[in-house]
């Protein structure tokens, strides 16, 4: 069964829902308007560990929001959100962290790292469209790299098995923990399914730690005034399905050079 009527939705929200609790500390060293991962920030959900080899996080991985898996045909939908931030005029997104890897070095100029959604596969329900068009790819920073201004070139395999380099990404200098750099397909109409390697144009001067992350956005909330809740009911949040084992975490688009505190609650309705 799935939730197909308003009465079923009301009943699920009241009587058969998993509650999400959000209380994240600020992440410093950010760039206004550039995405910031709260993966390594302490609070609720807890601090995520820096990944090593490629792996598929689940709802039970530290750093994600836990909820009750369902037995088919029962399903789960994100049906209510109330989020506030410590600073004004920014956005908060909830993503399913599909796969990740870390341990890349800011002093290595040879090709390094790889992440494949073919081999590190979270399952078709979490992936969404089979052509990978629902997936967002990122370079994610876990420990700051050095002060030299460098670029990254990322080699990928697209959904049609063609390969190529993305446009070079200007990383800038002194990239801090939490920074996310989106990986954008360089071929119109194609979608990334594998990142084959990352090549830095020069040593940044400090190894740091960064990696490759694949996510799928499930919800987005715009924040107006600081410390004031933005509430989204089922219609506003759009009832995105939350497949079993989804590894839900937060990405913030900050309005200052830190993410600001993020607090809130949500409900995943089951039925």
């Amino acid at each position, binding site marked *: 069964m799935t939730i197909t009527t308003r009465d079923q939705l009301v009943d699920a929200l009241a009587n058969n829902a998993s509650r999400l609790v959000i209380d994240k500390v600020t992440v410093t060293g950010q760039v206004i308007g550039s995405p910031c991962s709260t993966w390594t920030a302490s609070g609720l959900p807890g601090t995520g560990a820096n990944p090593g080899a490629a792996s598929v996080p689940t709802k039970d991985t530290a750093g994600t929001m836990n909820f009750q898996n369902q037995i088919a045909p029962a399903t789960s939908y994100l049906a209510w959100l109330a989020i506030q931030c410590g600073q004004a005029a920014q956005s908060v997104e909830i993503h399913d962290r599909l796969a990740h890897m870390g341990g890349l070095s800011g*002093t290595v*100029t040879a090709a390094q790292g790889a992440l494949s959604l073919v081999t590190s596969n979270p399952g078709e329900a979490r992936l969404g469209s089979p052509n990978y068009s629902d997936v967002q790819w990122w370079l994610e920073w876990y420990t700051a790299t050095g002060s030299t201004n460098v*670029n990254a070139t990322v080699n990928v395999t697209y959904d049609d098995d063609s390969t190529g380099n993305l446009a070079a990404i200007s990383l*800038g200098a002194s990239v801090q923990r939490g920074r996310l750099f989106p990986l954008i397909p360089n071929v119109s109409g194609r979608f990334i399914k594998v990142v084959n390697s990352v090549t830095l*144009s020069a040593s940044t001067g400090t190894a740091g730690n960064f990696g490759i992350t694949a996510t799928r956005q499930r919800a987005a909330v715009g924040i107006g005034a600081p410390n004031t809740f933005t509430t989204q009911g089922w219609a506003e949040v759009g009832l995105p399905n939350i497949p079993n084992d989804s590894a839900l975490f937060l990405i913030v688009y900050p309005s200052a050079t830190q993410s600001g505190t993020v607090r809130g609650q949500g409900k995943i309705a089951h039925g």
Partner: protein
Amino acid sequence: MFQVGQKVRVLSPFAESFPDQYEIVAVITDEDGQIAYDLGGIGAFAPQFVEIVE
């Protein structure tokens, strides 16, 4: 080793994104002794990613 003021072109895999000629504005040596050529606004490049323009 190249010198400040010399003109270079950027090589693969960065050539497509930086197709012009650029001037070396600084030579950087990190703590590990790795050299990089600062090409100004487009950032720094290791020696294997640049060649002198004749």
